[in-house]
């Protein structure tokens, strides 16, 4: 801790004790401490213990010499060094400088001039060998062959060139990215926030258009018609239990009537056919006879073999046979 710091800390302590003074028994102790510090301060800054001196010497040696072996080679330097360090490298170098500037001057005057000379010579000879070697190394250096030489300011045009090159590269990259993005976004259209005429027409078509999950033999069913027809058909079957065979028959008849009356057509001959007549998609569970309610769903299977033949012949026929409506 430096003297100034100590003093500052003391002042703080003083203030602190001053605050705490009221009704405190430890105020005496605080005072003694302060006094002690005042006493102790001058010797600590002036004198350095032998142990510390050794330590400082060693540090100074390490600092000055480049290599360890160099220091060991020249033991006689240590004497000079000792004085050198004594003069300048005290533990509280700054304090000494501040407080006892005149004293130090006197001291240095009192010592031999030769000592100081030797210190300077030493500085020139081996004290800063590292600095010397570094300086020499720099001076020896020739201009490098790399694009940006050792001294940047000497290659302004090179830097400019490199920057321009980077910029061009970046531009090309960004353009490529843009092109890729354009390709990715091709055909992607953000819709308008309002309903334009085309969309309105399409909604009209969708509302009044023909549902196609029914065979082409049945007339067109629009969404509206579907809702109405479903209502009629399901209204008819209220109060009847479809699991009873007698009710089932009645249900079937009623359903058919209701359905066709809703669609505005008389019922034609039964257009039933087995749905899974498509030869392509005959998996075991898809086969209707494996179904639990197979016979309940369509009790009459008259012309199953005929249908099979026709469907096998042509691909389109197979397709149309597949979607034929089943009651």
């Amino acid at each position, binding site marked *: 801790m430096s003297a100034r710091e100590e003093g500052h800390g003391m002042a703080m302590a003083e203030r602190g004790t001053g605050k705490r003074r009221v009704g405190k028994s430890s105020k005496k102790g605080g005072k003694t401490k302060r006094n002690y510090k005042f006493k102790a301060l001058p010797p600590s800054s002036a004198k350095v213990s032998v142990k510390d001196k050794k330590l400082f010497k060693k540090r100074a040696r390490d600092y000055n010499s480049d290599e360890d072996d160099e220091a060991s080679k020249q033991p006689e330097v240590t004497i000079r060094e000792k004085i050198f360090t004594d003069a300048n490298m005290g533990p509280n170098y700054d304090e000494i400088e501040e407080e006892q500037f005149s004293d130090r001057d006197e001291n240095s005057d009192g010592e031999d001039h030769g000592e100081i000379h030797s210190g300077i010579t030493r500085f020139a000879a081996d004290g800063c060998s590292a600095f010397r070697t570094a300086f020499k190394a720099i001076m020896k250096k020739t201009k490098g062959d790399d694009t940006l030489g050792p001294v940047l300011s000497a290659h302004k045009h090179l830097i400019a060139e490199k920057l321009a090159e980077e910029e061009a590269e970046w531009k090309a990259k960004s353009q490529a990215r843009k092109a890729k993005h354009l*390709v*990715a*976004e*091709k*055909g*992607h*259209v*953000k*819709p*308008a*926030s309002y309903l334009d005429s085309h969309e309105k027409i*399409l*909604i*009209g*078509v*969708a*509302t*009044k*258009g*023909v*549902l*196609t*999950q*029914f065979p*082409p033999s049945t007339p067109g069913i*629009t*969404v*509206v018609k*579907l*809702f109405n*027809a*479903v*209502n*009629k*058909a*399901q209204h008819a*079957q209220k109060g009847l239990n479809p699991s009873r065979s007698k009710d089932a028959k009645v249900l079937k008849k009623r*359903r058919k009537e209701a*359905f066709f009356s809703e669609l505005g057509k008389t019922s034609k001959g039964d257009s039933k056919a087995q*749905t*899974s007549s498509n030869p*392509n*998609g005959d*998996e075991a*569970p*898809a086969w*209707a006879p494996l*179904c*639990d*309610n197979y016979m309940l*769903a*369509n009790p009459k299977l008259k012309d199953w073999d005929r249908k099979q033949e026709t469907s096998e012949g042509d*691909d*389109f026929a197979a*397709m*149309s046979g*597949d*979607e034929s*409506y*089943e009651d």
Partner: protein
Amino acid sequence: MGRFKSNKKGRVNVKPIVKKNQANVDHVTGDKIPKSFVFSRMKLPGPVRQLQMDLRKLMLPYTALSLKEKKRNTLRDFLNVSGPMGVTHFLMLAKTASALSLRVARTPQGPTLTFKIHQYSLASDIAQSQLRPRCPQDLFKSPPLIVLSGFGSQELHLKLATIMFQNIFPAIDINTVKLSTCQRLVLLNYNKDTKLIDFRHYSIRLQPVGVSRRIRKFVQNHQVPDLRNLQDVSDFVTKAGYGSESEGDEEAATVTLSSDLGRVNRSSTKSAVKLQEIGPRMTMQLVKVEEGLCSGGIIFSEYGKSC
């Protein structure tokens, strides 16, 4: 041994499509339920990957929502998986530098329709464009209805496309279907002049007719209405708000319900069918029809190379 190894390598990483107890066959009608895979065999750019995800959501519930493809998966791998899983349709997206294409194929033997997608908008784009995007919880729990319009039945390839899209979703049995499951609608509109197909996906909503907007909102929202500006409580009911903008159109689109559908749509009241778009939206063109699954003879080609 070697064959076994390669087989293992090429396996498609797929989570069970649907719940295991869900059979391939509709338990009411005995019809086979069509199922689908939506995938692509290349690395897609971001928006197209999103489109693929939207298509998977559209194909719900009978599709593999989290189907994972790898680079080394060939079409055969998907085909091998599709058999035991009962998958009947493949939807394959492909992106080249020039065009984006969608192939719709029937497994295992084709045919394959190749569509070129001219324009598309994602579901998120459409939701962003709307003031109040609608997505009820059980929207994707039932298959959509499908409407095909303008296809006609003269041209063979159009007829084939009609049949293909008809069978991509399960058939409706009018006697057993629940109206609450009819929540979505897929529209394919063929334009004869431009030869383009508009692909749209809507949600179906029923709204009671003949009830003022205030009352409807009051019933729907469960909130205490603001009566500060009214002289009497009866004003709330009698005072006419601004009328609905499409009151005229609704007459054609009204239905009478036999059973209650939600809180608002009671039985024996009239309801209007309203459609609101939920993405994705596509404009595509049928360019090629192949006999087999992505192979075989070309039945139709837009650019007239064969026939």
